[in-house]
């Protein structure tokens, strides 16, 4: 690593200097052992870089033009234009071409990507994660990612984190329950069973009323809210087949089949518009 860095620093010297001395400098580096001596070599090569580029301008461009066959009067005189530095004309050409290209690209994007150049860089078709169904409503494709551009994304993002069942079902966190995630639902749901009683309570599914000990809630009201929580959220309502407010061991075992019943467009995946409660998806429908 240290040697590579030293080689790189030596290579940064002007062409004439490194052509003449680079090999010997590397030889000296190889002769030196010990971190202190090598550190001194690095300081030396850095000082040398500064010296050669800043204080020795006369040595920088002397190898630009080397005449060949100059001794023969009958042979035409050739000049080599080989140099370690690009010619100024090349640099100017490159700068102008870059400017023209960037201007054309900016102009094309500003026009909304019309034209062949714009189409190469700007996608103007329908959003990749959705297309229009027969009734004009957005239809989700299970093999595409749910993107931040979609208006449902902020709701879906918060909702998937709030409903713990969805959080564990959506293993890859793309807000789409894929066919594989549907088929592995029983195993995923069992991970939520913190009390190890074989079933999932509303709290284990994500129900939370707060933890303020000063507030004494009516137990009957709490139970009512727990039931409402399990009924209002489509995925929980589907999993709690007997609507007793808990997802039993049998319901966990049968969860894949229950989840498939939520697949309204029969694309085998469950997308946010099939999972979020009605009020959240009303703008989509």
């Amino acid at each position, binding site marked *: 690593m240290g040697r590579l860095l030293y080689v790189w620093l030596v290579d940064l010297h002007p062409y004439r200097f490194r052509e003449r001395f680079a090999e010997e400098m590397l030889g000296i580096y190889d002769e030196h052992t010990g971190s202190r001596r090598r550190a001194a070599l690095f300081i030396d090569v850095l000082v040398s870089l500064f*010296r*050669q580029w800043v204080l020795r301008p006369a040595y920088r461009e002397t190898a630009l033009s080397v005449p060949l066959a100059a001794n023969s009067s009958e042979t035409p005189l050739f000049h080599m234009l080989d140099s370690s530095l690009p010619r100024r004309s090349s640099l100017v050409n490159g700068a102008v071409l870059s400017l023209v290209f960037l201007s054309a690209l900016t102009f094309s994007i500003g026009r909304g990507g019309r034209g062949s150049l714009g189409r190469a860089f700007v996608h103007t078709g329908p959003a990749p994660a959705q297309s229009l169904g027969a009734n004009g409503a957005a239809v989700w494709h299970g093999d595409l990612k749910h993107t931040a551009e979609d208006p449902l994304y902020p709701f879906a993002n918060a909702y998937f984190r709030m409903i713990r069942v969805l959080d564990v079902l959506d293993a890859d966190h793309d807000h789409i329950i894929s066919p594989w995630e549907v088929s592995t639902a029983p195993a995923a749901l069992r991970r939520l069973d913190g009390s190890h009683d074989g079933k999932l309570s509303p709290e284990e599914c994500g129900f939370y009323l707060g933890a303020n000990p000063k507030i004494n809630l009516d137990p009957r009201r709490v139970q009512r809210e727990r039931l409402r929580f399990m009924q209002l959220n489509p995925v929980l309502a589907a999993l709690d087949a007997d609507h007793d407010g808990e997802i039993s061991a049998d319901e966990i075992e049968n969860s894949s089949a229950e989840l498939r019943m939520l697949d309204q467009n029969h694309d085998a995946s469950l997308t946010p518009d099939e999972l979020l409660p009605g009020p959240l998806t009303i703008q989509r429908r």
Partner: protein
Amino acid sequence: MKKDVGEFLPLAPPTLHILLVLAGKDLHGYGIMQEVARESEGQYKLGPGTLYDNLQRLMDQGLVQEVRRAANEESRRRYYRLNSLGRSVLAAEIARLEGVVRAGRLRLQAAKPRRA
């Protein structure tokens, strides 16, 4: 056209040390570094960047030249030799330094405080 040795004087410390060690024998770069450190008893150490910058200038000025070694010697190393102009410049610098030393001694003796 013969160059005036006076235009090279005074020599910078690294140049003086390089010419001094090359006055004894032909040396490669690493050899010059080691010899300079040895002759100055470790007080003056040349780095490769400083060494080759000076060698480049000395070769351009015609004070030092690169010499080819026998084929069986390590090919990566190049040897450097002090040529006649370099030797003249070194001799002139040593004469100048002798004058400096002589003048310095005289001044110091003259400035000695007299005993009461």
